[in-house]
């Protein structure tokens, strides 16, 4: 149940809501301005169900704004944005409620009266079941991020939005967390949109890497390497170099 309406796609920008069922995210003509300056300008984006998409870009290019819009946290927008009803976000900071124990944080906002077992199962999945009863203040950075991930997964999302979730982790923890996200995605089969500034991370995890610039998707790169991917693979390095160049060229053009 990715999207609600199933109708032939009409190639007309006025036909809002007309989306084929083979999309988990459909964004068209999206514009978001801050004080008259368009951070996102007539953006178009489609994500298939189960697809892992990474969104790269310089800081301030609007990639986090786009994610916040998809999460429904920013509604001062113009254009069409269609997202599945069941979606979840993991932020760069874990944003756990410090006054709730880990398992209560995981269950927070779930409809009905969910049992603790539901939370424990999600925590088990991220390898954190032993900290279920802990206060968030006692978690390490990696543990807190995993708890945040469990909180997102327990919602069984059709779309998982990740806003630089590994940004604040140390290098070793980051490698483990990346691997975990890859495994969870393969197991769950939900669509993932990962906002990051780490090109290697994007190539490692994503089916498709998008580069955002000037408020639009400026470049798109499909990654068809076999999983699990090997950083030392020459094709990996090639893709990585290409994307870096893409980002580098953009900064050079900006400076000129």
């Amino acid at each position, binding site marked *: 149940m990715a999207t609600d309406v199933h109708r032939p796609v009409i190639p007309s920008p006025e036909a809002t809501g007309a989306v084929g069922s083979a999309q988990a995210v459909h964004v068209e003509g999206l514009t978001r301005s801050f004080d008259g300056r368009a951070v996102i300008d007539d953006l178009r984006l489609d994500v298939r169900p189960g697809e892992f998409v990474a969104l790269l870009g310089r800081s301030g290019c609007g990639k986090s704004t786009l994610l916040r819009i998809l999460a429904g946290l920013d509604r001062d927008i113009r254009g069409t944005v269609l997202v599945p009803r069941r979606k979840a976000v993991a932020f760069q900071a874990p944003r756990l409620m410090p006054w709730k124990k880990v398992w209560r944080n995981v269950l927070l906002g779930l409809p009905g009266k969910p049992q603790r077992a539901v939370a424990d199962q999600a925590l088990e999945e991220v390898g954190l079941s032993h900290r279920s009863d802990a206060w*968030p203040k006692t978690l390490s950075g990696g543990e807190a991020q995993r708890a945040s991930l469990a909180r997102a997964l327990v919602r069984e999302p059709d779309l998982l939005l990740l806003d630089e979730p590994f940004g604040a982790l140390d290098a070793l923890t980051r490698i483990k967390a990346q691997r975990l996200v890859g495994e969870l995605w393969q197991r769950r089969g939900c669509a993932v949109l990962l906002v990051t500034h780490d090109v290697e991370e994007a190539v490692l995890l994503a089916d498709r890497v998008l580069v955002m610039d000037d408020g639009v998707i400026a470049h798109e790169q499909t990654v068809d390497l076999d999983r699990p991917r090997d950083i030392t693979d020459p094709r990996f390095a090639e893709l990585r170099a290409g994307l870096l160049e893409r980002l580098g060229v953009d900064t050079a053009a900006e400076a000129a």
Partner: protein
Amino acid sequence: MSISHAPPGPREPDISEISKQGTQHGSQQGPRQGADLDLTPIAPASSRRTRVPRSLRRTTGPLLLLALWQLLSTTGVLTPDVLASPGRIAQVGWDLIADGSLPGAIGTSLRRVAGGLLLGTVIGVGLALASGLFRVGEDLVDAPVQMLRTVPFVGLIPLFIIWFGIGEAPKIAIITLGVTFPLYLNVYAGIRGVDAQLIEAGESLGLSRWGLVRHVVLPGALPGALTGLRYSLGIAWLALVFAEQVNADSGIGFLMVQARDFLRTDVIVVCLIVYAFLGLLADFVVRTLERLLLQWRPTFTGR
């Protein structure tokens, strides 16, 4: 006991040995491996001072003061109509407890404080919720409250006596007024100080407006609310003293006013001690509340 890592045996201390030229002294003592440093032991902190435990040392000061007071009283330097002796005060305190007048007075005073505190908490927290949670509430409530806050509440006693007579009502009203403002200010600041990132996270988890208030805003405002409660308790005792010394016929304040008329400094001091103990008790209650309710705080170190 001390363990020295300095090499044993006779050795002339020579600063120049530290430098590289240490070899020329070698003929006298024979050079040890590398430069021969003058090592001094660092004694572990626990071995330095033992003897008197700290808690005992801390009680010595007040006890000495008490002894001095008793000494001055017995030698007649301090006459009873200036300040009664500690022994006399203990005796009077015991008598007052025995004949039931002190427990009665404490009961009356506690009832007044409890009543004022309850009313003040309801009003203060209610107003803070209204102005903290809703824009409209803020616009309507905050300005008047901030204006009223600047009026010294003790100054309202005459007005309250005209309005409420001389019974319990004006006393409870004055305590209520004193309690309301610190609670309002701290709860309001607590609500407005909740981390916007957490609110956003709550939103993204699908919490309703009420869910956000219940699971994010109110717990986040709790530290502020408890600070407010602490201030409020302090002010409640202060207000009680004022209220009871004007026109009371029962309570601790009344006991004091009566004692003043008979120059009974011993009774006055007993009442002051009671006030102090009640204040301590209130503080203890709030600190216990904080320990129970704020265990989650990263800064919490009270265990």
